[in-house]
């Protein structure tokens, strides 16, 4: 890895100017906990330019807006999310989920934006350069094959089935979060649910020259959210399966939202509703989760096991919420 230049903008306008002059080999760097290991692992032969976001105060911090909307800067560190009394009060699931990401050392550097934009992972891509070459490089590594789905050809969609592994994305999806994106043309807002693309290469709708600036979480009163994560260790690991579940009761209806990550090339968002808490509704949600999970052999756990766990976790999360609600 060789770094050709490093830009450290102090303001949004400075950042946008930097992006304007950037070339293809320019990368944005926030906490660096995903980008730097990837640069080392991928061993890019030509040098890269980095734009570091660490000095941009505008993009960091957690505030509660008048409408009880939470606004979190994209470069807010996961440790700050974990320690935020504001979030603990208004959105405790975000606090809990942040604490499930990686390790304390990584969370002290890693940012919310970095987690939402974390690169897709695949056992064939996340290898040292020589291993990837020995196998024949895959699409994501600049080659012309997919080792997971060898029948995929260039031009097919989706091209890359590397899996999406952001824990926090699952939670933000069920919370109905919005992503505020700034670029040369001004600012635009996207629903988190609309942001991701089911392709490990294209990954999301962030255009060249754009920066994910803030995440807005709408008021969370009146519903309960729970996140469950499958990983072999109690720390460090990316989710083999991550399931976020939200339940909202009102007007004689129970609305359930489910998002799962770690399996497909994009997070999956599901919604269903019923007359109230029933085992049938829970089972229906679980089945729907399992049906939409399309894991491949990318992980320590077998695809069938991971698929099954989607159902187990949805059931478990919904039952936890139900129990918590019925508790005095």
């Amino acid at each position, binding site marked *: 890895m*060789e770094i050709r230049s490093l830009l450290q903008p102090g303001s949004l306008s400075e950042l946008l100017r930097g992006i304007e002059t950037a070339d293809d080999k320019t990368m944005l760097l926030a906490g660096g906990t995903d980008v730097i290991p990837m640069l080392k*692992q991928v061993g890019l032969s030509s040098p890269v330019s980095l734009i570091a976001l660490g000095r941009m105060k505008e993009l960091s911090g957690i505030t509660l807006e008048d409408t009880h909307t939470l606004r979190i800067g994209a470069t807010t560190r996961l440790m700050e999310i974990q320690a935020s009394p504001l979030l603990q009060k208004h959105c405790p699931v975000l606090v809990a989920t942040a604490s499930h990401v990686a*390790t304390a050392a990584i969370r002290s550097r890693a940012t919310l934006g970095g987690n939402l934009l974390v690169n897709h992972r695949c*056992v064939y891509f*996340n*290898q*040292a350069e*020589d*291993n990837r*070459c*020995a*196998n024949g490089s895959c699409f994501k590594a600049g080659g012309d094959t997919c080792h997971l789905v060898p029948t995929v050809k260039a031009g097919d969609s989706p091209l890359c089935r590397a899996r999406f592994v952001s824990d926090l994305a699952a939670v933000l999806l069920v919370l109905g979060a919005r992503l505020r994106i700034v670029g040369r043309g001004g600012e635009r807002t996207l629903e988190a649910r609309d942001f991701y693309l089911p392709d490990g290469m294209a990954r999301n709708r962030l255009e060249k020259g754009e920066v994910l600036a803030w995440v807005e979480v709408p008021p969370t009163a009146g519903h309960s959210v729970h996140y469950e994560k*499958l990983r*072999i*260790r*109690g*720390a*460090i*690991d990316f989710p083999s399966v991550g399931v976020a579940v939200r339940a909202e009761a009102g007007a004689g209806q129970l609305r359930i939202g489910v998002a799962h990550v770690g399996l497909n090339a994009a997070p999956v968002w599901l919604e269903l509703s019923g007359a109230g808490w029933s085992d049938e509704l829970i089972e229906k949600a679980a089945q729907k989760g399992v049906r939409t999970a399309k894991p491949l052999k990318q992980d*320590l*756990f*077998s695809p069938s*096991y991971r698929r*099954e*766990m989607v159902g*187990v976790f949805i059931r*478990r999360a919904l039952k936890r919420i139900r129990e918590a609600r019925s508790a005095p």
Partner: protein
Amino acid sequence: MNDYRVIGKPTEMVSSREKVIGRAKYTDDLSVANALIVKILRSPLASARITALRTEKALALVGVRAVLVGSDLPKTFGVLPISRDEPALAMGRVRYVGEPVAAVAAETAAIAERALKLIEVEYEPTGACLDPKKALEPAADPIHPELNKGNNLHKSVRQEFGDVAKGFAEAQAVVEGSFDFMPVNHAFTEPHATQVEISADGGLTVYSATQVPHYLHLALSDMLGLPLHRIRVVKPHLGGGFGGKSDPFPHEIIAAKLALVTGRNTRITLSRKEVFLTNHGRHPTTLQMKLGLHAEKGISALSADVLIDGGAYASFGVVTTYYNGVLLMGPYPVPAFSFHCDRVYTNKPICGAMRGHGSVNSRFASEVLFDMAAMKLGLDPAEARLRFLHDGDTLTINQLRITSAGLKLGLSTAMKRARWSEKHGRLPYGKGIGVACSFFISGSALPIHRDGLPQSQVRLTVDFDGAVTVYSGAADIGQGSDTVLAQMVAEVLGIPFSCITVVSGDTRLCPVDMGSYSSRVTFMAGNAARNAAISLRRELARAACDLLKIPVPAARPASEPESSFRLGGRAPEWKSAYLGPNPDFSDGLDFRDGKITVSGKTVDYFVVVKHAVQGPGVIQTSGIYISPKLGGTFKGAGAGLSPAYSFTAFITEVVVDPETGFIRVEKVTCAHDCGQPLNPLAVEGQIEGSIHMGLGQALMEGMIYEDGAIQNASLLDYKIPSPFEMPEIDMIYDLGADNEGPFGAKEVGEGVLAPLIPSIANAVYDAVGVRLTSVPMTPDKVLAAMREAKGSA
């Protein structure tokens, strides 16, 4: 009861402070002057002929000083003299993905990397043999044609003791099973690293992260054609070994050769991926085992058929092949035993020695089967084990001499402390408690090289300032061996710990030691250090008496000199050679707290030393250790012989999630008979470390190969347990002294690991009623086993 001042007291490791504050120098922290950076080009293919290898373009790159290929190092090497089958750089063919093919020495790492890309290699792939079962089939092109075997068998061992058929016939319960184990890696913190300093006259000093400077010394001399006295091997601080740094390695030979070729200093540090490719970890294993148990007499017969996958070269494999069988002869007597183990070559990275060498996987099988048999007979599995454990002072059927055996006390204490009888079979569904036991060698009695050298030698000097220097070839690899050597010398001389400096792991300064593997250092180097200290004490006793103008008290008559047993005597005679755990120094002098007391008169240690060095100058003494001659006369009788054996029991409590299959190990109670604990801090550290490592193999670790290429060669994807997985640990380890161990000590570095894994499996059975036979016991396997049990119920 002993009256030790240093022995048995928690003692801070001699290098712990400098390690904690980051001042300790590991190999990569050294900077030999102006070194060339060495990088290795490795094979991308599991099996291929090299049809062309062109280095001209790489050599032409500015900054490249040399490029090596196989023909530059035309010999083969290997840690065991009987199986030196490995080239430092591939010669004509490659045998695994990652095998070194060429090496570059360049001015910078970037130039070396670029040069590797300029080396042109043409391969003609040959059919790779990746499946160990297929390795036994006839092969047109075996991996090692020089063995003339016509297939890929490396070593086959068959042994039979006692009447096995009769033993099974007499058994009241006969159980059998098939078991399989994934390959695991040591995953030590510090990657392999070597730096080479070449003197103006062409002599080499090789700094290397090695467990055995002596073996590296021998291998370098042989491979480089340089006399031994022209090579000095130094082991800096080491960040873990666990067996993975006990062989000589290609990168060490390559770096030294490149220093010779260029006349420049060289350095290399392997990446984590290269560490996984270098491997030498535990052999992947499949085995069938059958165990017969009698409710009154214990195990009546045991038979095992084992297949271990050695990868491309031999390493310690011959030893591993034997250990899979012979180390089943404890911790319970086995009157009839038949054993067959094949080690095969496959086109994968090499397997070798790893903590619990050769005993871990077969121990899993025997302890699961013991559990099954005991329960079949309606016996409490812990009570049954307790009843049938080896007594001390006994011979096993394969002539292993068991001296001290403190596990009956250990296991019974553990059962009480864990409240076994209240819990076993009585916990709610999903919660379980299990037990397992094992034993392990305290050093191999038979040295690898039969060159007549003592297995350990220690030299001591004391100069006018009273400072004692301990010179030992043993390698402190983080386990604390320097500290226990210093403790033993301090205890014998009755001087403060701060008087002692240990110089170790340097082949020029220190006498030869066989190094740190097979849990031998405390026992062997420890005895040598203690013997050297006793000699030094005699010198000081003379000086003290001279100073006090009193006659030197007569030493105890040497009718049973301590050397007689240590230097010889076959097994049956051993009782007559009893010396006690710490032979009375027998000089009538009292050395303690920096004072020497004779006949009621006391003189200061420093005063005595000053007096002693007047005239003769610096005082030097030495001590050695050689194992007693042990064992039978049958083929392979030497395998598994040790001057003493440690014993271990685990009582393990688990929670199994019936929906996900996750096993959570909540608590372990570990009883380990390490003889007299010398440094409880180090003993506890070894027990905790063994539990962490065993937990990894039990629950999550495994190297995943696809077409011979490892798929999880990083510490993100190769899962070693995080602190969250560590259970609560209760340890019991002061279970009596061994008569021959230094101050009564035995090993604690390796033996602890093995029984943890089957104790988890047995606890899972108690929790959810399934027998797991595949390791690691990942949640998907647990769930599948539970489903199968439900289906057949």
